[in-house]
């Protein structure tokens, strides 16, 4: 089985790269950006084992990615127990923002190596349990693309800004579990939890709960979800620095915060259509997600999907 996908996304923001008066809408910086990405995959398997491989690319004005990944899935005990191993390698490069140069500099390498091992077990006729572990090793230019820090004794910049500096290596670990319980053939609930830790001294806990309704007669599916995330700040984080240090960041994504996300997804399958006299099936899905963080960020995601089965 061969699969391929292509993505084009574009966005615009008033001040998406606003740093002091030199960038963003006020400074006449980049106001609209686009990203192009594609992926080609191949999958093969038999009754007990499935393996797949994929090749992906992604390009935007300050970030390029060439990535490969694979997956091996094996079943045991008459498919009661399933083991999956998935390695990935990202050969990325990113432009670092340079205050002195007044803009993004040339591309610098960022390599990411990831391995995920997971297992799922059928506990009863109504329960599925999954456990997994993810290991990620990062190497290269790991600074945020366009972040600066405020250094109070900065002698040259009138806004007291210096470029963010982060270590060139990062090792990350995550343990996760998910439990799905079916109350009936059409109603189920899912609970998931993830513990995360890395060598930048960030620890995080993420929990998600969801209720699922799937009508087999009418082929619709609905799923409200509630996700909670809590993380500590990296040891390199400060809102402002009294003096310049070797590693400094004020990126809000690396700060201490809690976040909540409420989502609702609805899907309808098996909508018969007859384009040009041929009977096909249409699949529609819509979703809305509201996210809020305690350190000020809020955003909404709206998704619409259309699929056609020939």
């Amino acid at each position, binding site marked *: 089985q061969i699969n391929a996908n292509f993505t084009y996304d574009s*966005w615009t923001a008033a001040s998406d790269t606003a740093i002091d008066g030199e960038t963003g809408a006020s400074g006449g910086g980049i106001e609209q*950006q686009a990203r192009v*990405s594609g992926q080609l995959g191949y999958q093969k398997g038999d009754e007990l084992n499935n393996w797949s491989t994929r090749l992906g690319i*992604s390009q*935007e004005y300050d*970030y390029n*990615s060439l*990535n490969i*990944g694979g997956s091996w899935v094996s079943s*045991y*005990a*008459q498919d*009661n*127990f399933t083991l999956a191993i*998935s390695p990935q390698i*990202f050969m*990325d490069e*990113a432009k670092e923002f340079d205050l002195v140069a007044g803009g993004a500099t040339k591309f610098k390498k960022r390599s*990411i190596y990831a391995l995920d091992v997971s297992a*799922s*077990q*059928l*506990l009863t*006729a*109504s329960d*599925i349990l*999954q*456990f997994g572990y*993810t290991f990620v090793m990062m190497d290269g230019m790991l600074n945020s*693309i*366009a972040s600066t820090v405020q250094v109070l004794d900065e002698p040259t910049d009138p806004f007291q800004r210096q470029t963010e500096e982060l270590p060139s290596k990062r090792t990350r*670990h*995550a*343990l*996760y579990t998910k439990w*799905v319980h*079916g109350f009936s*053939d059409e109603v*189920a609930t899912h609970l998931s939890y*993830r513990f*995360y830790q*890395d060598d930048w001294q960030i620890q*995080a806990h*993420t929990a998600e709960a969801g209720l*699922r*309704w*799937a009508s*087999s007669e009418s082929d619709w*599916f609905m*799923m409200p979800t509630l996700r909670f*995330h809590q*993380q500590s700040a990296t040891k390199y984080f400060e809102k402002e620095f009294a003096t310049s240090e070797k590693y400094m960041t004020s990126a809000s*994504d*690396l700060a201490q915060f809690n976040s909540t996300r409420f989502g609702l997804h609805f899907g309808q399958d098996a909508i018969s259509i007859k384009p040009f006299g041929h009977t096909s099936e249409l699949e529609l*899905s819509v*979703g809305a*997600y509201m996210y809020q963080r305690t350190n000020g960020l809020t*955003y909404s*995601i709206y*998704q619409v999907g259309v699929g056609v089965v020939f």
Partner: protein
Amino acid sequence: MRLFWCLSLLFLSFSCANVKQIDRGRLASKAMALDPIPEESVFLNEVNSYREAAVGGTAAVGGGCGCN
């Protein structure tokens, strides 16, 4: 290492559970899937991996974010 052996023992004990093929009708429904919306989840997990400091449990660990 201790955590690894504990998890291994846990998996071994679970593998003793045996749900027969004839009893798996409910498990095959969309509501029971570990990820019932895989295409939509890809984007949601990418956003989480870049707007939060944690990753894991998904394929979203690299490849840019389109968020600058």
